[in-house]
């Protein structure tokens, strides 16, 4: 089983890179959906394994919830928001795309270095798959920094949450059930609110460029 988990963790990392290299908003949402499918697969495999070994259905339920919320509902919300705003491609970047990708490479190398000397990292249930998932968190944060439009920021936030979820999965084979469901609900509500806000801001001020939102101070 751990082979499949390794492979999925590296595919998650690749999807993060794909996200970083994109300019079109629709692709952000599609890549996020792909990432969520991979996470669903991950929880599914872990859930079946735990069902087989311990008879617990916790993780399987979490898997269902993930599929319901992250694979189906949140992309649906984002798509609705996407149709109502007027920009479809992000054209303006602080640094261009190849430099961002090289930055993501540095993040992966850096994560590997900072975790490689942690004691007990390769024993027991924790192992180096955590490197990939922590890189996912950092890449999500980097994505939020590099994008100027609001939908990019929302997707970045969602990727950070994905990364935290996967790290918890790898590190402790699942968080307590209530905590998992609670977090997922929170995310759902946050996205709904953010989506509504984005729509309102766009309606009111004509643009959702974050730089311009700075002018609202004072």
């Amino acid at each position, binding site marked *: 089983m751990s082979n499949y988990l390794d492979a999925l963790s590296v595919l998650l990392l690749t999807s993060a890179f794909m996200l970083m290299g994109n300019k079109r908003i629709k692709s952000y949402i599609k890549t996020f959906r792909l990432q969520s499918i991979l996470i669903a697969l991950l929880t599914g495999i872990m859930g079946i394994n735990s069902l087989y070994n311990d008879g617990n259905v916790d993780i399987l339920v979490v898997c269902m919830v993930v599929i319901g919320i992250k694979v189906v509902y949140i992309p649906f919300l984002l798509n609705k928001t996407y149709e109502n705003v007027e920009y479809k491609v992000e054209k303006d970047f602080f640094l261009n795309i190849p430099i961002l990708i090289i930055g993501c490479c540095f993040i992966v*190398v850096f994560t*590997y*270095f900072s975790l*490689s000397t942690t004691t007990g990292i390769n024993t027991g249930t924790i192992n180096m798959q955590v490197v990939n998932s922590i890189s996912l968190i950092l890449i999500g944060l980097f994505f939020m920094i590099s994008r100027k439009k609001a939908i990019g920021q929302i997707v970045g936030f969602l990727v950070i949450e994905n990364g935290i979820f996967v790290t918890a999965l790898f590190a402790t084979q699942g968080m307590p059930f209530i905590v998992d469901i609670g977090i997922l609900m929170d995310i759902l509500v946050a996205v709904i609110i953010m989506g509504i806000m984005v729509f309102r801001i766009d309606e009111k001020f004509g643009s959702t460029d974050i730089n311009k939102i700075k002018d609202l101070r004072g």
Partner: protein
Amino acid sequence: MLLIIQNIGEQNSLFLAAILLYLIAAVASLSLMKHHKLCNIVSNVICMIAGSFGVVASVVKIFTGYTQTNIPMLQSSIPLITLDIKIDSLSAFFILCLSVLVVCVSLYSIGYNSHYYGKRNLGLFNFLYSTFILSMFFVMISGNAVFFYIAWEAMSLISYFLVIFESEHEENQRAGKLYLIMTHIGTAFLLIGFMIMFSYTKSFDIFGSSAAIPEVAKNFMFIFFFIGFGTKAGVVPLHIWLPYAHPAAPSNVSALMSGIMIKTAIYGMIRFMLCYLQIQQTWWGVVILCFGIVSAVLGVAYALMEHNIKKLLAFHSVENIGIILIGLGVSFIAFSQNNEFLGGLALIAALLHTFNHTLFKGGLFLGAGSIQYATHTKDIDKLGGLIKKMPITALMVLCFSLAISAIVPFNGFVSEWLTYQSLFLNIGYGGGALNILSILSIAALGLSGALAAACFIKLFGISFLGLPRSDHALNAKEVPVTMNIGMGILAGFCLAIGLFPAIFINIVDKVVFSLVGSSITGNFQGGFLNAFSPLVVSGNSISPVDILIVFVVVIFAALLIIRLIGGKYIERKYGTWDCGFESLNSRMQYTATGFSKPLRIVFSILYRPGRKVEIEEGVSSYFPTSIKYKVWTEPIFEKYFYNPVLNMIRKISLKIIGSVQTGSVHAYLIYIFIAVLALMLYNRLA
């Protein structure tokens, strides 16, 4: 001074003969100053004979492997100023490189110097030429730091005079000035290194033991030696003199400078850092590896943008020095981790690449000289179609271009393959940082190899192929025979080393064995007779001969089968496809600027190209009479590194001069008084 020349043992008699012959050539060329042709032929022939003695002597020395004690050549009564000679396998190897190149370049010069007849002082030129070779010879055989330093200085000065030989061009003078300043900055660092050496071991003997020097001092010595030798070798960022000095010198001198003078720095690095200081720390190797990677990539990147043939070749020297440093860096890292096999392998790769570079870079500069001789221009954009006018030169330059791009079956491929193998074996030893550095250097080597191939396709394709782009190229004629034979010998060596690598690696292996005591011939099938056997390194093997045989067989089979299928070969000559335009002229071909444009755009962060378009309008703005388009790359190192330093120095100097040089006699007398008092005080306290 009391001069005693001691008896030199029998093993060195050929070396002594070579030295004497160079001296004779120098004297002869001065005395025959009035008879140009005779002077030229005599001095070059004597140099050739001396060179062949050198080749024989060094090969014999390497195979017999006898190292003798220091033989003082000149002793004087000034303490510590003794000039010792000591020739061991490493020196013999570099003398082999030197001598091979000298034989070919001297043969070439017989033809090349003929365009100086009556216009310049050939006697002076040949005198400087012979003494230049002699000074490099002394650098490599010196056994004493004092002798080394004297020979090094002599080499720099004489090459300065050679660089500004055609001094009526303004840019040659500036190039010479820059060269002199840069090389003396490097020599100053060397001097500091030698002084640290003396202050701890109380002797200048290079072959002595460095055990008395503490760790910290050794680290400092490493840094100083690296800067000193790096300036001469052309390591980025100390390379800025290379692209100016090498084009300014006459082509045979450029061949010598780029072919062997740069390598004396590599000799110095190996001799001082590996043999004398005995690699202690891993970070030494890492520093060398990093600078090697940067030089390799930046050297070839800047070479792509040049359209002056010699400047392009000079930047390529920077790139190849980078590759040699990558090999050296890996070997130093391996030695510091007590990995004898990998250290020996990487050192073999570096030394073999040194030899190969001497051959093909020397050959390329000679080829550039031939082009300049025939067409009187160095600008690629004005050439074209030369392959029909100078077929033999074109074939030689093609061989050298293939060799430098590391294409099978020439020699560049063998040394790059060995470098790749040593990098490959390096991954897995050492910590994570070293692994990532190794894989990045593999990627950098691949990138620089591909870019070098692109650059030489540009050089060869646009100079030799297509239609002539100017009258210079239209009226070119084949060059004199001696020039072609000189280049031919070098090309023959390139092909030979490429096809039969085992023999030459045997030679290099013996050198490495004498240095570090580990040999990798155990993995080869050694011996002369196994010249056809493949080169095997830890299970991976290559055999260029087999590939060549496959090529020949396949081509013959293809010709046969196609003849069977398709009948006789009928060919119809027609013009190039011109889309029906019907007046295809040479202006419609790609120029060198155009060829390198995609790469200029891809790497525009590095180059920051600037462009200027001047349009002279005719009847209306849609029908201009002339358009001038100028594009240039920003010289990053000069602008951001050297200019600020120079400006700061200038400001500080002006301020100090303003305050110290008051012009009043009393002030100067007070300075003298204070200086004398300070010295007496120092005497009391120290």
